[in-house]
């Protein structure tokens, strides 16, 4: 939609408040990390650890998709494809070839970059709506292929993937460390020359071209970055669950990651982290409601969005805080 008469939250010239300063500099990140690090001291049941590890992985996914959707404005409805490619590459190489998990990382990087190029190159010229359907299609193609092939274990998937460590607490901390680095990396990319170019493209491709931004290459870069983040998250996922199957990589998963990004606040790193945590933990908190779980989840999503239309923690331009 085009602009409207309603004033928006973005880019105000209000003087920075203490809160906004606390919210948007590195303190927010450190505080978040601290919460993640201390959480196991408060509650360390296997269940809590498992859920928190999954949430952390989900944060990484959301941070990756945020590069594509939040920064660059490319609607990707099949992001889970990269997640699947990462998880399956790690899974196949560990169980079929016998590589240790860490040794699969370089391979995963290569494969996800290739996947990013293969999916992105022919399609990034498309307008956003068409891009959405094409990414959705690729997501489905990857999942169905995994479901049909033998190396990927068919419908029941791959099991017995070795974890990095037998101790779930240690694995949790490893995950948190990796995810923290990934989030920091995404944030830093967002504040760089490349990150600005992404945003220029999101706002106006023609104007960006006129300023010398090779929109096609820069979009592809966003796509590849997103793919790498997704792929690495896939490795963590495979290690965490020890078994992966096509049902983990459905369209619904893509939609959930996208929701995390939007719910938190597109383009805003703290927002995306919060969004991902909410989306992954909310269903767990609602678990005891059994039949009403997803009904309530749906209603809550609507309510949250109505209350905070720009997302829980919307992006503000860096300048707005000066």
């Amino acid at each position, binding site marked *: 939609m085009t602009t409207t008469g309603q004033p928006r939250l973005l880019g105000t010239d209000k003087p920075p408040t203490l809160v906004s300063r606390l919210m948007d500099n590195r303190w927010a990140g450190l505080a978040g990390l601290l919460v993640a690090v201390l959480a196991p001291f408060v509650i360390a049941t296997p269940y809590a650890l498992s859920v928190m590890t999954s949430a952390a992985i989900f944060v990484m996914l959301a941070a990756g998709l945020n590069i594509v959707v939040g920064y660059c404005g490319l609607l990707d409805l099949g992001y889970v494809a990269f997640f699947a490619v990462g998880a399956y590459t790690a899974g196949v190489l560990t169980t079929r070839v016998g590589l240790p998990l860490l040794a699969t990382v370089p391979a995963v990087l290569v494969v996800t970059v290739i996947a990013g190029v293969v999916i992105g190159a022919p399609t990034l010229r498309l307008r956003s709506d068409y891009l959405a359907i094409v990414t959705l299609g690729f997501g489905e193609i990857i999942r169905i292929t995994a479901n049909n092939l033998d190396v990927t274990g068919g419908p029941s998937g791959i099991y017995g993937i070795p974890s990095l460590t037998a101790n779930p607490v240690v694995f949790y901390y490893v995950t948190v460390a990796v995810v923290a680095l990934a989030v920091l990396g995404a944030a830093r990319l967002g504040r760089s020359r490349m990150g600005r170019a992404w945003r220029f493209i999101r706002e106006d491709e023609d104007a960006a071209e006129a*300023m010398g931004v*090779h929109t096609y290459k820069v979009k592809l870069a966003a796509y590849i970055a997103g793919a790498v983040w997704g792929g690495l998250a896939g490795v963590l996922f495979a290690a965490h669950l020890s078994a992966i199957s096509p049902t983990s990589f459905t369209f619904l998963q893509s939609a959930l990651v996208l929701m995390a990004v939007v719910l938190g606040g597109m383009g805003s790193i703290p927002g995306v982290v919060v969004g991902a945590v909410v989306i992954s933990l909310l269903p767990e908190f609602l678990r005891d409601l059994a039949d009403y779980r997803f009904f309530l989840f749906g209603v809550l999503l609507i309510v949250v969005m109505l209350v905070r239309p720009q997302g829980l923690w919307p992006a503000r331009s860096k300048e707005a805080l000066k």
Partner: protein
Amino acid sequence: MSLLEVEDLRLRFGGLLAIDGLSFSVEEGEIVSVIGPNGAGKTSAFNCVTGFYRASSGRLALRGENLLGLRPSAVAARGIARTFQNLRLFGELSVLDNVRAGAHLWLRQGILDALLHTPRYRRSERECTEQAHHWLDFVGLRGDRYGAARNLPYGEQRRAEIARALARRPDLLLLDEPAAGLNQGEKAEMLDLIRRVQGLGIAIVLIEHDMGLVMDVSERVVVLNFGQKIADGRPDDVRKDPAVIAAYLGSEAHA
């Protein structure tokens, strides 16, 4: 060798020949105005030069180097910057970020620099911001440069767009109706701004309907009508050209 050479350019939209054998050239540091009735093909000519439209035939060269068939970003990389007739700022981004876009081509900073926050990254970011402020000062932007660009009043958005183009540090600047929506006082400022840009050694091609400004500032005026050049010369000569008066100025408009 001229800075910009346009030779026998043709552009067709279906049955409409929007540009019909247009030729003109721009010398280093020169200010050339392109005028003509609405729909004469002025903006289309800009779009051809900057790669947004692909001319059906003709020759386009910057310092002898071919521009035809390049994508807009490649043209920009050769040293041409432009503004748009229907403003094309990055609306949700801050004014400052908009001007930073101009720095995209000369900012030396790799992905690794950004990930590791190397000194090079810090230096280039600082320079980028300083430059952005510099150009905003240069164009005399009055509005809030930290707020979203789309909240600026129209006239200020024009200025911000020029600042963005200047931050590109071009050799040739194409301005599409920079004075539209400005009142007399502001037009005087615009005139001054254009002169100062020229003072930096940047050549300018200007599309403008305000004859006062055109006559004051240009060294040469090119007149288009129905996609064809009907006059090319010094402002005073063009102003008296009967063909130009009939097609464009009207008998009383140059008052």
